């Protein structure tokens, strides 16, 4: 039978599987067919796994035995920086050419335990560095809504796979917006959890004080199902925490959304994006949500702060790629030369750029004025957010991105202008708080409709507030 993949969500697919409307194998076959048709144009997947149908058969057995959970049989795209034992993993970098993961990431273990199906490895910017997947060593992922435009990044493959109906859901990682920005560009839901909420064991590290794994999905409910499946403290990630389950905010007398107007005044923000954002706020207000102007006095420094702290951590995390332990090894005169040649040939331009910047901001004489100051500022930004949330605001709203998806090649030679695409998303990583991007409409360009997104940010551990307001927003738009 032909399955209507467009209408499918994790929850509805689960019901259909349970009722025997179709089997996991049939569902997986439908996705493989979509991938076969579309992936050559979109390039969301770097690899489609050869054993998808075997995985699906195992999941079918769970349905036959009546031993299913919410994600049994759900077909996932997995970002190429998340390890699945025995499979290739490369963070879309040449330096990991030929590398096979020797263990499962904790999030993968959790999904496997539920009987989820992994369709393939999703394309990304090399080592998750970028906002467009143009930094992938294996070619750019195109936006399913307009193939002349980027899908966003760094989890662009994950977002495009879900948006184009080539996966029901996906996992991505978010260091400064890498889940939310591509989700917004592709018209789907993307969520970055509270720092520590999801274990990063088995995630190829980029910025360790910022990285989080999270879901990309078609609905807020789907994102919530995935988040609840992958969260939790893990002895293999010392920064992971068990979130206290906070109560739903829906019973609050009135849900309060804070808007930092002063942060939206810059001229780098598209008029259409702002108009769409204001319209979204009006709809929320009509639906009984209180919109309150809030002040985040240091937020304008968040992006600069991010582009110091992140490369500093990158330069340290990427030191492990030396041609000795795994992946590529280039020839050299002596060991030092092997390191230099391997790293020089294996890392792409953006990775090299960030390693150099990171090395600079950490070097003697510059440490205090760059890294030290950025860390101090980070503390201030964190405090600003805490104060706003303590004043009774449940979530802060901004557009997810300052513009809709840009053209392929438009920013690829202008790193700084690419960095500015992260202006609204980095704040959540800097402050360690959860954030959710939900589709909010479209902007028109050249006869194509380009998706826009609204971002909600909550206080640490209050993912539930995001799901509450996100679902509410979905129903009123």
């Amino acid at each position, binding site marked *: 039978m032909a399955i209507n993949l467009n209408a499918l969500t994790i929850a509805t697919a689960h019901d259909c599987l349970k009722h025997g409307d179709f089997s996991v194998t049939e569902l997986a076959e439908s996705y493989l067919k979509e991938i076969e048709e579309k992936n050559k144009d979109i390039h969301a997947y770097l690899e489609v796994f050869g054993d998808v149908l075997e995985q699906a058969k195992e999941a079918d057995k769970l349905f036959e035995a009546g031993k299913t959970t919410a994600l049994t049989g759900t077909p996932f795209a997995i970002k190429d920086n998340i390890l699945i034992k025995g499979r290739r993993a490369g963070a879309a970098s040449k330096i990991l050419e030929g590398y096979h993961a020797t263990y499962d990431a904790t999030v993968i273990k959790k999904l496997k335990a539920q009987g989820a199906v992994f369709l393939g490895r999703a394309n990304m910017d090399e080592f998750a560095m970028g906002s467009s997947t143009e930094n992938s060593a294996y070619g750019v992922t195109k936006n399913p809504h307009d193939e002349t435009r980027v899908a966003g990044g760094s989890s662009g493959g994950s977002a495009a796979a879900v948006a184009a109906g080539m996966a029901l859901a996906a996992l991505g990682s978010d260091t400064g917006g890498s889940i939310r920005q591509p989700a917004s560009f592709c018209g789907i839901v993307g969520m970055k959890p509270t720092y520590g909420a999801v274990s990063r064991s088995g995630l190829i590290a980029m910025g360790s004080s910022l990285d989080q794994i999270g879901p990309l999905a078609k609905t807020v409910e789907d994102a919530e199902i995935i988040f609840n499946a992958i969260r939790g403290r893990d002895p293999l990630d010392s920064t992971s925490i068990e979130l206290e389950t906070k109560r739903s905010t829906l019973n609050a007398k009135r849900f309060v959304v804070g808007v930092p107007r002063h942060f939206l005044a810059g001229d780098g923000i598209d008029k259409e994006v702002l108009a769409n954002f204001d319209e979204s706020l009006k709809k929320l207000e009509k639906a009984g949500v209180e919109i309150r102007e809030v002040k985040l006095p240091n937020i304008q420094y968040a992006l*600069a*702060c991010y582009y110091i702290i992140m490369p500093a951590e990158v330069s340290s995390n990427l030191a492990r790629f030396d041609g000795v332990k*795994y992946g590529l090894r280039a020839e050299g005169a002596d060991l030092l030369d092997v390191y230099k040649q391997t790293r*020089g040939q294996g890392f792409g331009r953006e990775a090299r*750029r960030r*390693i*150099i910047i990171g*090395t600079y901001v950490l070097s003697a004489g510059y440490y205090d004025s760059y890294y030290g*100051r950025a860390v101090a500022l980070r503390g201030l930004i964190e405090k600003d957010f805490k104060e706003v949330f303590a004043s009774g605001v449940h979530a802060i709203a901004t557009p997810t991105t300052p513009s809709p998806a840009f053209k392929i090649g438009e920013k690829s030679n202008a790193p700084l202008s690419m960095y500015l695409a992260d202006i609204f998303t980095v704040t959540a990583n800097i402050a360690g708080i959860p954030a959710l991007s939900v589709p909010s409409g479209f902007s028109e360009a050249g006869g194509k409709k380009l998706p826009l997104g609204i971002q909600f940010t909550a206080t640490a551990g209050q993912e539930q507030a995001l799901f509450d307001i996100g679902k509410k927003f979905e129903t009123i738009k």
Partner: protein
Amino acid sequence: MLEIKDIEKLAELARLEIPDGEKETLLEEADSILGFVGEIQKLTPPEPAKETRIIRNVFREDKEPHLSGEYTEALLAEVPETEDGYIRVKKIL
């Protein structure tokens, strides 16, 4: 403002070979990025109160080790060059 020799020094520190033709562009890009992030230097942040966060031991107890050699084969299979169960590298001295 950075100079080419600064880029070379940083590349040396980072164990990174940068092709000659790319140093100029990298210099320009690094300058513009540092110019942008340097804006935080205009701000004199009040010294943030040194909060003591919750301190806990994040290391596991040193017991119940896995079997010796349990993962050796799988890990060595990923190493570019091995010899008799060792990782082979170029001479250091």
